[in-house]
């Protein structure tokens, strides 16, 4: 009786219990780890919403009794760094003026580089690529001083333009690698078909390759925006106080030695500075993780 045999016993998906040892283990660990990582953020937010008298009470974890946005306003518009007392707003706009052109310039050049390396195997392409990749493994610190001299000689030391150029150059190896690998993974026959159809170097790049590579452009933008926005070293070395990027200015606010330490202002300033990468993270979601994974080569 084959039919009765088939009717008995397990059928369909195996039932799974919601509360099992395995689930408790997994979710328990996840919750614990997220608490550990979110705690500092919590302290920052809570502190930034308190007035100084309340902070002096010393209850770091206690929620604010009286919520005030005064520290945020001060951090943005009136906190002093050196001679300037216009808060982080100056640094914010400096950072925007550094990040936007650097991101556009570096991605524009690197995508063409990657496309040429992947599809047009010109003479010396491999050598060129090797040199570029070696560049990714040289510590930045080694090159700081030579670049200072170069920028001084071409008259761009201490200017935003100079910093934009530096960021574009340092983004080149990793971005070129990123784009080259992406373009290599695209079917070669598509490129051949376009050549038979009479499209040239730029024709194929703009009409065929670009429309197909939105994902990698998003990854590159995320990588560059977060990288350049968060940069401190190049900002402090290659610019002057009135064009300091936000990160450098933040450091100057937090580390200023005169007067009272205004913890609430410092916390607010730090959160404001970190807001841009944070927003990018929430907006781009999964692509951000891919960007980080791609950037893992960078170390």
């Amino acid at each position: 009786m084959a039919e009765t045999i088939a009717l008995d016993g397990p059928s369909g998906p195996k039932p799974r219990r919601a509360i099992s040892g395995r689930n408790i283990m997994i979710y328990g660990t996840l919750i614990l780890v997220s608490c550990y990582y979110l705690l500092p953020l919590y302290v920052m937010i809570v502190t930034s919403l308190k007035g100084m008298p309340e902070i002096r009470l010393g209850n770091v974890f206690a929620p604010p009794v009286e919520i005030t946005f005064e520290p945020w306003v001060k951090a943005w518009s009136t906190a002093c760094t050196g001679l300037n007392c216009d808060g982080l707003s100056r640094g914010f706009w400096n950072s925007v003026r550094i990040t936007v052109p650097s991101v556009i310039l570096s991605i524009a050049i690197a995508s063409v580089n990657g496309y040429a390396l992947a599809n047009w195997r010109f003479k010396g392409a491999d050598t060129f690529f090797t040199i570029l990749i070696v560049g990714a493994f040289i510590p930045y610190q080694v090159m700081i001083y030579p670049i200072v001299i170069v920028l001084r000689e071409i008259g761009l030391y201490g200017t935003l333009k100079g910093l934009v150029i530096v960021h574009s150059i340092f983004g080149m190896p990793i971005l070129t690698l990123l784009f080259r690998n992406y373009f290599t993974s695209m079917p070669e026959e598509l490129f051949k078909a376009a050549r038979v159809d009479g499209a040239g170097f730029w024709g194929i790049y703009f009409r065929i390759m670009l429309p197909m590579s939105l994902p990698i452009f998003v990854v590159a933008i995320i990588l560059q925006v977060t990288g350049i926005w968060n940069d401190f070293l190049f900002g402090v070395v290659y610019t002057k106080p009135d064009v300091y990027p936000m990160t450098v200015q933040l450091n100057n606010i937090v580390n200023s030695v005169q007067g009272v330490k205004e913890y609430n202002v410092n916390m607010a300033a730090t959160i404001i500075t970190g807001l841009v990468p944070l927003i990018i993270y929430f907006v781009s979601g999964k692509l951000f993780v891919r960007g980080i994974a791609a950037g893992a080569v960078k170390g």
Partner: protein
Amino acid sequence: MNTELKTPDSMPSVAVRNVSLNFGSVEVLKSLNLDIAKGEFLVLLGPSGCGKSTLLNCIAGLLDVSAGQIFINGKNVTWEEPKDRGIGMVFQSYALYPQMTVEGNLTFGLKNARLPREEISKRVARAAEILQIEPLLKRKPAQLSGGQRQRVAIGRALVREAEVFLFDEPLSNLDARLRAELRVEIKRLHARLDNTMIYVTHDQIEALTLADRIAVMKSGTIQQLDDPITIYNKPRNLYVASFIGSPSMNFLKAELSSAAILRFEGQNVGLRGYDFAAPQSVNLPIVFGVRPEHVRINAANDAESYEAMVELVEPMGSDSLVWLKLGGQTLSARVESSERHHPGERVRVSFRVGLSSIFDAASGERL
């Protein structure tokens, strides 16, 4: 000598002259020569890695040759860009531009060539009509089935109104039924357009059904260039014989004991009806090649027959393949599926010698 080719009548549509191609130290093509007549359907056939696609890419101008020349319509195009060679090409993976509609795909090349708009729409309409893809014009490639995509890819070659069509394994990505369907369609297309077509494939059925002539290739050289019937019946060497035909040819070790008699497993096979290319020396070790359909079982009116034992029977629907043991050698015979044989059965086997092939065992060349 001047390389410009002679009168228009005898001028080949595509001529490959001493073309070599090396990738580093690897010789992919070895001084190839090939003339393809106007309107001819030539198939380049061979296993993967034999250089057939490479040769096609060289003709298309997608690869630079290391040496030699390529002529299309009498014009030396060796240094020309692909777009200037008067070719249309169809790829295995279709290679449709995914972000463009079918219409966009068809017009991309024409727009690059800056053709007037009326001309473009005229050509697109014609190609769409021929290939019956009119209802698909506004769709994106992702919304098409494999067969439809390949039809659009053919259309893209069609609108170029090229003299020469190049096909790079166009049917290999399709399932068996669609492949058979599109094969017929390509043949019909060729009959209608009468363009020169060069078609690369590793599928011998495609080669045999489509080709006016087949070039069988092996490691960068052409082994035999002939019409399909000749290739099938008179393979020039062991390689061609083993590559063409499914189920494949039987190869039996034997010896030529005189110009008309073959010694095989201690028995004599008369060679009446076999057409030797040249008088042969005796006592020569040879390979006797006979296709399964030319092996007969228990044929009453065959004078010479040999005892064999049935090992295995493979029914294939229209006919059956019977595997036999004759002395120490194995061979297969193709019989009507109505003939029933069973393993262990003793049968009498005979050969249709006139349709067989005899190869020199040492060189592998046909005798």
